[in-house]
């Protein structure tokens, strides 16, 4: 057995000496029971994470799902609250732990981490899964090992990533949920309308969607009445994971475009440290091209302080339209208040996990993989310092209203036409109930996808 140490950071409260509690004191000091891995042995932790990723190993011998069907209210709520985290044991424990960490209450931290560790499982029900992934982040936060953990999770994901698995995953997700297709359909609609009549189109796709957005657009271009325009697609990849598969994707896209009869050119830009570094030249922007900048989940990966600069950079490209799709959550304004940020993070991922639970089958591998992908974002947001250079992995989401404020510095909003709205509604009809299109209120821009009446994805279009 290795004896090792982890540092639980705290300023003043040290419980080193008061262990002569009576057997029956109300607040027991539980730190002796902590069965967790200390951060110095993160290799062991990462082997755990690796093990978690391999389907053959289960951390617990059997894991009875702790929810009974009658207890589990899909979406979490009464009163139409889809991600009601109030009553569930996992959210209570997790929030308590976050507070304890914020208060630097060492014994409470230990007790809660221990308890969460006992009850969590990435293979159990929603509560257990959330407990498992958030426990990881809380543990990292408490032991100041977030950065290491994050890097490990990235490398694990990169090792297990392949074109086939990624493609299968995305397609399956799109089949059972409009989470991603919503943005695609709306953005495509806006792009097509904005670039209508242009002979040379250049779409700058800043996303990690593996080009699943573009076949429909190519199809639309091909079936238009007038002459098919020339399409240049420049994909800017911000996740290292994705860049490895882009070669395969470019081949497929070129083949598809040939089939569609669309003159097509495909470029990939990857390995960027900062989006703000992009230039017209680097992107190959030509004077006679009509530019569309398409950002799917890309802005949130930009460091918060650099977001304004990136938007200005977009402006400098002279686009006719900028489409932005982001998930509706705010991890940005609360980034200096751990507990608030934690609660918002929990709210969002509870909604997401519950949605996954409902949309996929119980034993779906894809669901498991999507859940695992969340672990990186959760650790990154909750347990890593922003000032550490994470190369485009910021993950601090903002709400549509917040993005709008930023974008309004350089652009003005474009409403979505009724046709596009109809297309979106038709799309949603293809999925199970629970999904709705929400039009913005007075000062809002864009369109919202709602799941059980909670806004989850935001799409917007902008012009200079």
């Amino acid at each position, binding site marked *: 057995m290795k004896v090792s140490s982890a540092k639980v950071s*705290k300023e003043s409260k040290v419980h080193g000496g008061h262990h002569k509690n009576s057997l029956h004191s109300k607040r027991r000091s539980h730190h002796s029971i902590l069965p967790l891995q200390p951060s110095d042995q993160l290799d062991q932790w990462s082997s755990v994470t690796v093990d978690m990723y391999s389907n053959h190993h289960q951390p617990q011998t059997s894991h009875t799902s702790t929810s009974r069907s009658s207890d589990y209210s899909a979406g979490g709520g009464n009163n139409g609250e889809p991600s009601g985290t109030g009553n569930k044991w996992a959210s209570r424990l997790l929030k308590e732990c976050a507070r304890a960490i914020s208060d630097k209450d060492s014994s409470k931290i230990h007790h809660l981490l221990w308890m969460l560790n006992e009850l969590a499982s990435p293979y159990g029900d929603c509560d257990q899964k959330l407990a498992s992934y958030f426990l990881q982040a809380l543990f990292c936060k408490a032991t100041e090992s977030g950065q290491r953990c994050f890097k490990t999770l990235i490398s694990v994901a990169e090792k297990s990533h392949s074109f086939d698995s990624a493609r299968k995953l995305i397609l399956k997700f799109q089949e059972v949920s409009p989470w991603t297709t919503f943005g695609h359909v709306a953005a495509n609609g806006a792009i097509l309308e904005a670039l209508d009549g242009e002979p040379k189109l250049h779409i700058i796709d800043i996303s990690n969607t593996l080009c699943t957005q573009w076949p429909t657009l190519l199809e639309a271009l091909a079936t238009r009445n007038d002459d098919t325009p020339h399409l240049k697609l420049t994909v800017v990849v911000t996740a290292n994971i994705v860049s490895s598969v882009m070669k395969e994707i470019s081949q497929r896209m070129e083949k598809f475009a040939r089939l569609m009869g669309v003159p097509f050119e495909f470029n990939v830009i990857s390995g960027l440290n900062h989006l703000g570094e992009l230039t017209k030249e680097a992107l190959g922007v030509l004077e006679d091209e009509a530019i569309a900048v398409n950002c799917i989940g890309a802005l949130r990966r930009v460091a918060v302080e650099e977001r304004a600069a990136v938007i200005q950079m977009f402006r400098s490209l002279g686009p006719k339209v900028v489409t932005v799709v982001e998930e509706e959550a705010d991890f940005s304004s609360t980034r200096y208040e751990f507990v608030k940020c934690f609660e918002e993070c929990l709210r969002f991922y509870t909604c997401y996990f519950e949605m996954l639970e409902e949309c996929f089958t119980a034993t779906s591998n894809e669901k498991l993989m999507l859940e695992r992908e969340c672990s990186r974002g959760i650790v990154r947001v909750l347990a890593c310092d922003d000032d550490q250079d994470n190369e485009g992995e910021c993950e601090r989401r903002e709400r549509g209203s917040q993005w709008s404020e930023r974008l309004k510095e350089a652009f003005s909003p474009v409403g979505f036409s009724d046709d596009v709205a109809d297309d979106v509604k038709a799309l949603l009809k293809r999925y199970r109930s629970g999904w709705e299109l929400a039009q913005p209120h007075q000062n809002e821009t864009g369109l919202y996808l709602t799941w059980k009446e909670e806004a989850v994805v935001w799409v917007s279009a902008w012009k200079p």
Partner: protein
Amino acid sequence: MAMAIDDAFEVDFSCYSTSTTTTTTTDDDPGCTWNDWGSPVVDWGSLSSERDEFQDLIESMMDDGMGFELARVENETSNSVSVSVSVSTDTMVVDDETNSGDSKGLRLVHLLMAAAEALTGATKSRELARVILVRLKELVSPNDGTNMERLAAYFTEALQGLLEGSGGGHSKHLITNGTHHHRDKHHQSDMLAAFQLLQDMSPYVKFGHFTANQAILEAVTHDRRIHIVDYDIMEGIQWASLMQALVSRKDGPPTPHLRITAVSRGNNGWRSIGTIQETGRRLVAFAASIGQPFSFHQYKLDSNETFRPSAVKLVRGEALIINCMLHSPHFSHRTPGSVASFLAGAKTLNPRLVTLVEEEVGPIGDGEFMGRFMDSLHHYSAMFDSLEAGFPMQCRARALVERIILGPRIAGSLNQIYRSRNEDESGPWSEHLSTVGFKPVNISFGNHCQAKLLLGLFNDGYRVEELANNRLVLGWNSRRLLSASIWTSPPDSDL
């Protein structure tokens, strides 16, 4: 001799040798040699320790035992002091088989405490309690594993019962007649066997009986008529040995007449093996067989169990004894109200002697649920340990006793603690007797010696303490388990 009674009653009171023949047939464990505990295979001395395992477990949770250190490390980069936590067990990847026994035991205790806290603590969460219990059930079984694991299984079941019952209403159904939803109804033969085994494997039953009987004998040396009102007669084995002693007593009037009034519940909760009537018939037959003048009466309590002393038939000149065995395996179905009513009523009868045997409760802090829960855990851990220490090879026998007797006791005990958690702490009944006005009666030297001799027949770990002039306490290692106290009516109330 035509003895209608089981051989179990063949207790020769004056000789202290319990040559009980094994009448049980259910335990065919080849390692079970009931009559062999006089000749131990193992050196008891090396087995018994000053402290019991449970206490060690708890202490190590509090202290820095078990290879765990909590050290302070000065953090040089900042002025803050960080706490280093070193653990020597890597249990993040929880594979139950790789846990050492101790750390698993700790874990189980911890989980039980967490569940109990979730059920009753300041921030209650039934949902959390339920989830913890699910986890516990994955880890333990009442049939295998260590003492701690089996104990944890029974406590888990008991907590589960509280969780489900706490939706409202009485939880009496938990321990009555084996209609406990976790278990099938116990077969009579199983119950008989388990009770017999408990007597053979431990002094728990006999300690109470012998101490009470000895005090009774000493109190009635010159009496011709004795009347015993027995709160919970069960199978009546206590009286078999008393009768034998009465029949063979040398001084005083020849064999006095013995009358027993058995108090019983009107409707039946968990019943003894057989009805009160059967007990009565057995005792009558036994008395006849040894020449003891005897009569048996039954007093049926009504449904709310109020004891009406006026309904007890008294005969002038008889020595009235009140016998209150509150530690019987199935005692838990008697509510405190019922006991209080009985004792209050008994007082008005001005009995010559009151014999009280009850479970001894340890320090329980502020008397709230968690403290009493921990105490209960400690209590039954000691009992499990004591059985194992005495009979380490007889796993199946012990498992039977645990299942039939101790498991339901645990459930009943927790139930009791849970139901009274918001009320004022109810102290031990011996204190109640004192408050109500009974006076203590010294336990004789002979009685105390007899207790020691009894314990000597079992494992070294048992001890008896005289905690007050009128009170003997049986314990296992450092844990006190059973209290036997003797009382009498205050002098000027003799009518």
